[in-house]
């Protein structure tokens, strides 16, 4: 890869005009999607598909100067509702009568800011694809092709008029679909605040507050970072009802990988080393220095595994 990187760097340096002319429009489209996500009110039916599994949800977003609220209701299988406000994400699980609450200030939310969009071109070749009609909207495809095998590729379809993202397909190195999220029906505008309230009275439910706060995890780090993935935040939080954990998040601007570190005594079950997956998400668990390390990311197995294997503890 080193040689390849060298050559790619060389070739890129020779043809920057070509590369940039090709992607300037595409970067503009990413910015347009970003703006649409922050400005529009909408409600729609949304299908998530990975492998043979597909699940329908309803997503409603209420954009308002006093604060945006967004709600996702899963319609298939176990009912779940997730409501996101400016500083809180609450997940309502009627099956177990639990509300999981994650508060954060906008300040620590490492969103993909418009100025970071240009940086994506370091790890992805970004170009315009075909136009395609989705759920009644004419959409433009933007294609992100990864420059190495450490990240997935993406095809993003945005409404030509508003920039609203209607479909996102994640692709593996062979170009095969790993997962897909598509609106099958979408209405823009006409959303009221009532429509984004959690539907069920959940006052008597148990609240699990993550109490997440930025913190230094003394002694923990990676022996070798994964190319392109930078540390974006390090925090302490609770998982579930009581388990305290450290979380370190790495991102290349498009994909994110979280490293969770939990003292083993806090868990009743032993750490089971290995890889599991769900669509584009891979989870790798191993034991390091009497802690359970769980790495979760929407990245190829090799990336998640490499980060997991690089996690080390050095006595501070």
């Amino acid at each position, binding site marked *: 890869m080193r040689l390849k990187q060298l050559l790619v*760097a060389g070739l890129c340096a020779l043809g920057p005009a070509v590369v940039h002319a090709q992607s300037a429009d595409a970067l503009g489209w990413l910015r347009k999607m970003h703006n649409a996500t922050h400005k529009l009110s909408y409600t729609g039916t949304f299908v998530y598909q990975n492998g043979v599994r597909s699940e329908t949800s309803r997503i409603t977003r209420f954009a308002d100067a006093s604060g945006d609220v967004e709600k996702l209701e899963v319609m298939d299988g176990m009912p779940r509702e997730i409501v996101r406000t400016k500083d809180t994400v609450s997940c309502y699980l009627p099956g177990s009568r639990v509300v999981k609450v994650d508060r954060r200030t906008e300040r620590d939310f490492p969103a993909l800011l418009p100025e970071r969009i240009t940086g994506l071109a370091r790890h992805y070749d970004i170009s315009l694809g075909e136009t395609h009609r989705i759920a009644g909207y004419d959409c433009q495809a933007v294609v992100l092709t990864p420059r190495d095998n450490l990240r997935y590729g993406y095809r993003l379809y945005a409404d030509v008029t508003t920039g609203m993202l209607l479909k996102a397909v994640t692709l593996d190195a062979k170009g095969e679909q790993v997962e897909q999220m598509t609106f099958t029906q979408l209405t823009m505008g006409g959303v009221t605040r009532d429509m984004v309230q959690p539907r069920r009275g959940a006052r008597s439910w148990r609240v699990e507050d993550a109490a997440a706060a930025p913190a230094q995890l003394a002694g923990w780090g990676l022996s070798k970072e994964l190319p392109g993935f930078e540390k974006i935040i390090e925090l302490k939080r609770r998982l579930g009802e009581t388990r305290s954990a450290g979380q370190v998040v790495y991102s290349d601007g498009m994909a994110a990988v979280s490293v969770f570190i939990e003292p083993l005594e806090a868990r009743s079950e032993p750490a089971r080393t290995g890889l599991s997956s769900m669509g584009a998400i891979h989870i790798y668990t191993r034991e390091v220095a009497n802690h359970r390390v769980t790495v979760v990311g929407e990245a190829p197995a090799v990336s998640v595994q490499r980060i997991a294997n690089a996690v080390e503890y050095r006595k501070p």
Partner: protein
Amino acid sequence: MKERLSELMDGELDDRSAAEVIKALGSNREAVRAWRTYQLISDAMRESRLLSADFTARFSERLAHEPTVFAPRAMQTESRRWLAMSAAASVAAVALVAWVAFAPQPELKSAAPVAQAEPKPNLVPLPSAANDYLLAHQGFSPRLSLQGMAPYVRTVSEQAVEPRK
């Protein structure tokens, strides 16, 4: 310069800086020596398979025998711009030859860090606390900025906690 070389090796330079360092490597013998030493150290540390001892010589020889199609003689009388362009084209050709020479040889992969295969992992069922991890993780996905909260759909329904290939 040595620091830049080390950054180049680790893939930490952006395209422009990388191009500058690569250019410098073309004219700076000491830098080339340092580059070789670094590569050797890195290979030794990773216990990568080394290329055969005379690889560089054989490669250079093969490269020398490649026809140079981009710079026919007649062009030398043309304007400076042409010269610059054909020079660039030659460099591109070298890069391309190098690419072609390196790319399809699977035995070279062991020297490349990315291709360095991770040990084959055990496949295990999703952790019972998968939803806790997913919820905690999704909030940091940059995709939320492009797609609203759609990525939160990736939670696990109770029935779905089973081993997957």
